[in-house]
């Protein structure tokens, strides 16, 4: 597949750009933050996205989706990155849908139409510590009656507060650190109840901490095969990592554009500061780095359709590179803006905060680089 967008994909990008620029620009995020909105995103906006087919972009047509594929999902989330649009798109429309597509007929029928209609939000509960480390899952699920009994804790669940269900990675055999012996369960909001608490991170979005104390789920809560959930979990995480990479690409592009506009306007020493070679060379370097991110992200998105067996590596590459360059783009943006870049009134700080969160979520640079090194035999 050529590393360019086709006409249909270009149209989708234009549509996403137009819609998000109008309905969910950075000022919308600012308002959600200032209002201390409990969710940190707008249900009304989410339903509008559903009406355009976005929430069902990876959902099969028989469940009300448009099954458009990862490149389309990536384009939407890249535009969300440009606008810092807050929504449960990556958690629900990308990751949960990827997991549930591998679920039973009943599970697909129960959950996928709701996601496509914008009525259902489902989050992935995987992390237990301060660093992403899925193989280290310790939360236990033990056979109990006709179902399972869950004990343990999950933290930093993306969009997990008030979610209609959580997809929980649990250990059903083996020890923390083993990839074997991990299973995925879908746990409904009613079962979670008050065991879940909300926390906001610096990006003003909601994350949940959930304590599982003898929490019972039915046997049909298991997604996929018992003890063999790690491969599916990895696929779900790869989809999420690629989504975050696309989002960081959009955020990097936008903060770079804002910075270029600013240094062409701002005058000091009687000239535009953008005329100084000290800033020009750093800008040109950053431009080059962002070009590399574009290539890595597009390839990672395409791999899910054209070479799924390599998609995990593609996702790790895209997440690593987009995270590294995202942090550089945010740092350079604030530095080149000077004092105004440090003020809350100016938008650039929102980009720095979201990129900081996104590069950490689902594995930071070191995590992805370690995976790639192992794949490459060192």
């Amino acid at each position: 597949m050529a590393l360019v967008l086709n006409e249909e994909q270009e149209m989708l990008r234009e549509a996403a750009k137009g819609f998000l620029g109008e309905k969910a620009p950075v000022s919308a995020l600012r308002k959600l933050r200032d209002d201390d909105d409990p969710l940190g995103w707008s249900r009304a906006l989410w339903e509008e996205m559903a009406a355009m087919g976005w929430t069902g972009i990876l959902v099969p047509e028989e469940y009300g989706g448009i099954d458009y594929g990862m490149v389309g999902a990536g384009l939407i989330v890249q535009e969300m990155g440009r606008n810092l649009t807050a929504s449960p798109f990556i958690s629900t429309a990308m990751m949960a849908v990827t997991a549930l597509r591998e679920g039973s007929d009943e599970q697909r029928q129960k959950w996928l139409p709701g996601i496509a209609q914008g009525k259902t939000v489902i989050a992935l509960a995987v992390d237990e510590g301060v660093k992403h480390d899925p193989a280290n899952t310790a939360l236990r699920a033990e056979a109990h009656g006709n179902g399972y009994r869950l004990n343990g804790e999950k933290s930093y669940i993306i969009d997990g507060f008030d979610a209609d269900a959580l997809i929980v990675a649990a250990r059903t055999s083996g020890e923390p650190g083993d990839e074997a012996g991990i299973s995925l369960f879908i746990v409904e909001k009613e079962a979670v109840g008050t065991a879940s608490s909300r926390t906001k991170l610096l990006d003003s979005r909601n994350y949940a901490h959930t304590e599982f104390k003898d929490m019972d789920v039915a046997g049909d809560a298991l997604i996929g095969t018992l003890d063999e959930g790690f491969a599916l979990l990895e696929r779900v995480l790869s989809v999420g990592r690629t989504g975050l990479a696309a989002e960081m690409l959009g955020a990097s592009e936008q903060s770079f554009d804002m910075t270029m506009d600013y240094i062409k306007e701002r005058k000091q020493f009687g000239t535009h500061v953008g005329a100084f070679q000290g800033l020009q060379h750093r800008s040109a370097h950053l431009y080059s780095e962002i070009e590399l991110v574009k290539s890595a992200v597009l390839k990672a998105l395409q791999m899910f359709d054209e070479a799924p067996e390599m998609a995990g590596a593609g996702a790790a590459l895209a997440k690593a590179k987009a995270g590294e360059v995202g942090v550089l783009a945010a740092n350079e943006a604030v530095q080149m803006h000077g004092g105004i870049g440090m003020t809350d009134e100016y938008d650039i700080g929102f980009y720095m905060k979201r990129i900081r969160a996104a590069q950490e979520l689902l594995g930071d640079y070191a995590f992805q680089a370690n995976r790639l090194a192992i794949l490459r035999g060192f």
Partner: protein
Amino acid sequence: MSDLATFRDETRAWLEANCPAEMRKPMRNEDDACWGGRNFKFSSPAQKTWLQRMGEKGWTAPEWPKEYGGGGLSREQAKILKEEMAVIKARSPLMSFGIWMLGPALLKYGSEEQKKRYLPQITRGEIRWCQGYSEPGAGSDLASLQTRCEDKGNHYEITGQKVWTSYADKSDWIFCLVRTDREAPKHQGISFILFDMQSEGVSTKPITLISGRSPFCETFFDQVKVPKENLVGTLNKGWDIAKYLLTHERAMIGDSGGGGGALGGRSLGQIAVNALGTDAQGRLADSALRADLARAEIDGWSFLLTMERMKDEAKAGQGIGARSSMLKYYGTELNKRRYELMMASKGHGALEWEGEASRDGELPRAWLRTKANSIEGGTSEVQLNIISKRILGLPAT
């Protein structure tokens, strides 16, 4: 069967029948590279046969039109040829500045007579070309070049000095930038001209580099007589051709430097593993080096994909333009990093300068050679200036 599938089958069969076995082994040293030309000494009969056969098919320049000695292949067909050659590990039949640089310029700016005369000699490897661009006083500021070219009525007369002329001592002809108008602003008095290196008044002197090798020369012109029909394009408009060629050269340097082998072949990390060993988990024991290697691989892979994307975009009608400066900048800086890491991975062994084991210091000499990557063809700083002005639109001082 699609036309392309048929082409692939035919190509595979032809290569199988025509590529000598010896030409399917990796090159042992620089002498195994075939540059062609009047005075070239083939390292083996197989090397000569391979050049002749590929030259006859025009496959030394697959995408050039057949009437000028090229293969007349479409982009897709050329890609298939490249892939099929890679399958049998066929060596490149011909290294040639004529193919990489002069040819594209002649195809765009040359007269019909010039194309008919020079291009077939290039594809058959009969004439070896060198490039006369830089001068002692015109490096990054190339347009300030001073080599004088005067109209003497029925011919031109050229006097001056070039430097960093690649393989000038081994080349048959030179394509050269000369000043034809000393009064005009510097970019508007330059012309692009071709002449025989055997002409009276031409002399060359190799420059020994820090690697101990001498791929470059100083080249002197003392009242060299050049026929008027050797001027390419319009008088005093040579800078346009120079810029066009530099774009080609930059893409090429970026390409060769780049992520080479990041996706295929042995990874940088495996080179280190072979030299230094692993811990119990199979990981490179030196964790700091391992992190640096992983970073270089991530950048190498991303860069390779960027090269691919630029080619696909060019095919889809979006020219590369000034973005070739980005490729040149990033590819060469990356290549320098890769060689630093290879040196680190081999430790003291990487310092060996002579003897069989190190193949006379192949690695350290190559490492030293990479230091020129970010200087030749426009320094990294010049590329960053071009990106700033032409892509980002940042104001001039």
